[in-house]
């Protein structure tokens, strides 16, 4: 008979989840499962609503990455309207999406993961947090504050507010960018770029301390998926959908709207999170990863000078390890601010024509963008009155579901020996999940006062070991 260890809730991630670790008769780890314990009902309650409401409505799915939903949803609506949106609107959408990526990555790296990376996986859990980081390395903490604040400020300047802006609309964006705002953002970017570069340098050296974690944090062969530009450059707004293996061999490259020809979704009884997989390889063998690690694995270039320098070094790492999501996130922060600078430096960015107007001209629309955590898909169908009859969303964290489960199983098998648990072991298993930076909350990321109570229970119900914090 098996035994089960439960980590409930998983901390320092966005949303509510738990981990169960299943032991066999010999007390060895059989498998570990990542359970998302909250339900997102947006697909269902979107039904019957006018399609043009979707971007603002869908943005409410999440308080961390609302802009990503806003962009993917608006793109789906563009297709329903059958419009080609003005070029300036495309650039402005790109900028707000990049700002979103930067601020979300800063949150993940500096606020949620840097305590493990700076203070150590086994450090006192009472100090293993951003306050502990502030004491130990104030400059690192200030960097996190500054980078996230700038990402959010850019979103606020463009969208009117930091969280749930409604500026991205079907057909483009609701209003143009002023020269004053452009100049203000441009003035702030050089310092942010410098901070991102410095943090990459620091973390590239710090990586040497984590060879064991790199070896067992979801380190296995598999596929990587993401959008890719026409010159194989990093792409976050448009482009083709590509899958490649860990050696870089492309296994699929197709127009993004054809995603259903290669992606199917499995449902697991243990979680509200669906598990997409690569159809030709079947379930669960068709496991793939998305997000910053996948994007940088797929891209031959970032298209910005400093990020490209960092990418050259990143290419030397073993991309099979999810631990390298952390460095990938830093490189994408650097890329985001550099690319925003490039886009703002083009005078066309101030063009006043930023929206195309039309009623519904098609019954089906699909929108895709790269969210901070990976490829995000919105797919709608409408009736003759423009009312939603079908909505299907595949969120980035869902794409990573199979990889996260396999990853925590690998780490649990490596660290849990002889039925004994330590807080450091549990933290490492949580940290595997943190590398993926899952966003489970879908409109709320409040986790409140968390307790962690992990029990190892034998067949007869006897508690063999317990760790509580």
């Amino acid at each position, binding site marked *: 008979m098996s035994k089960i260890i439960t980590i409930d809730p998983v*901390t*320092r991630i*966005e949303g509510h989840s738990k981990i169960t670790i299943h032991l066999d008769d010999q007390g060895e780890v059989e498998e570990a499962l990542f359970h998302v314990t909250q339900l997102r009902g947006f697909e269902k309650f979107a039904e019957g609503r006018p399609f043009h409401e979707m971007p603002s409505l869908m943005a409410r799915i999440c*308080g961390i990455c609302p802009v990503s939903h806003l962009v993917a949803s608006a793109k789906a609506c563009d297709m329903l309207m059958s419009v080609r949106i003005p070029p300036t609107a495309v650039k402005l959408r790109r900028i707000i999406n990049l700002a979103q990526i930067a601020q979300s990555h800063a*949150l993940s790296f500096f*606020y*949620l993961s840097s305590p493990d990376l700076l203070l150590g996986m086994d450090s006192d*859990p*009472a*100090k*293993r*947090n*951003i*306050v502990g980081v*502030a*004491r130990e390395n*104030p400059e690192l*903490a*200030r960097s*996190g*504050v*500054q980078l*996230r*604040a700038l990402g*959010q400020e850019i979103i606020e300047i463009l969208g009117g507010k*930091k*969280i749930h802006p409604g500026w991205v609309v079907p057909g483009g964006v609701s209003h143009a960018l002023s020269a004053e705002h452009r100049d203000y953002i441009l003035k702030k970017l050089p310092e942010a770029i410098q901070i991102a570069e410095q943090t990459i340098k620091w973390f590239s050296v710090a990586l040497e301390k984590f060879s064991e974690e790199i070896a067992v944090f979801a380190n296995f062969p598999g596929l990587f998926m993401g959008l890719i530009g026409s010159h194989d450059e990093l792409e976050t707004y448009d482009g083709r959908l590509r899958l490649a293996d860990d050696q870089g061999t492309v296994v699929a490259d197709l127009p993004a709207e054809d995603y259903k020809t290669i992606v199917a979704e499995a449902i697991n009884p243990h979680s509200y999170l669906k598990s997409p997989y690569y159809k030709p390889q079947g379930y669960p063998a068709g496991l793939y990863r998305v997000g910053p690690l996948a994007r940088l694995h797929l891209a031959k270039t970032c298209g910005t000078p400093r990020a490209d320098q960092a990418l050259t070094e990143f290419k030397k790492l073993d991309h099979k390890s999810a631990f390298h999501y952390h460095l990938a996130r830093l490189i994408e922060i650097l890329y985001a601010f550099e690319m925003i600078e490039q886009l703002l430096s083009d005078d066309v960015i101030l063009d006043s024509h930023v929206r195309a107007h039309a009623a519904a001209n098609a019954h089906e629309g699909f929108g895709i963008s790269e969210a901070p955590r990976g490829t995000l898909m919105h797919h709608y169908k409408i009736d003759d009155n423009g009312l939603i009859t079908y909505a299907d969303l595949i969120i980035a964290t869902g794409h990573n579901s199979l990889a996260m489960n396999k990853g925590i199983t690998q780490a649990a098998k490596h660290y849990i020996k002889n039925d004994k648990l330590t807080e450091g072991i549990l933290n490492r298993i949580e940290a595997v999940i943190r590398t993926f930076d899952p966003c489970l909350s879908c409109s709320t*990321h*409040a*986790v*409140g*006062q*968390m307790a962690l109570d992990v029990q190892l229970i034998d067949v007869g119900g006897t508690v063999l070991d317990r760790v509580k914090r």
Partner: protein
Amino acid sequence: MHWLVIGFGNDLAGDDGFGIAVAEQIKKRAAYDLAMQITIKVIATRILAPELLEDINIADAVIFIDASAALTDGLPKKIDLQKSISSELECGSSIFLSHRCNPLTLMQLSQTLYNHNPPAWLYAIGSCHFGLFENLSDVVADLVPEVAAQIIDQINKHALCEQA
């Protein structure tokens, strides 16, 4: 003197929207009711996160506004946060498990990261109505103009003292 006023809470969770409502009212009244020499930034936000430190770092004084289930229902309370600031960084707030802060943690982070420790107060209202609804309860709604007036009064009095 530059004041920073931060009202926080979830305006979709009943009385948790109290801080937002007071902040919005102060925004509207600031231009008419505050003394000329005062500069003020009013922020209405769902949660307190570390990036607010950038605003705190340039403020001479900070006021937070919140609703709390821990206080007596319907009773406003003013708490001087600076009196706690010299103590060791406290543990146990949700910042240790997510990216949310409480006012005290934010002020302590300000001290640690920027060596900036401006006077700070928390205006909190007790309530037990935090369900999934947009409106404030009648008792708490009635207190919105009262607390907004108290804050404006505090800021104006401070300006008068400075002039004297």
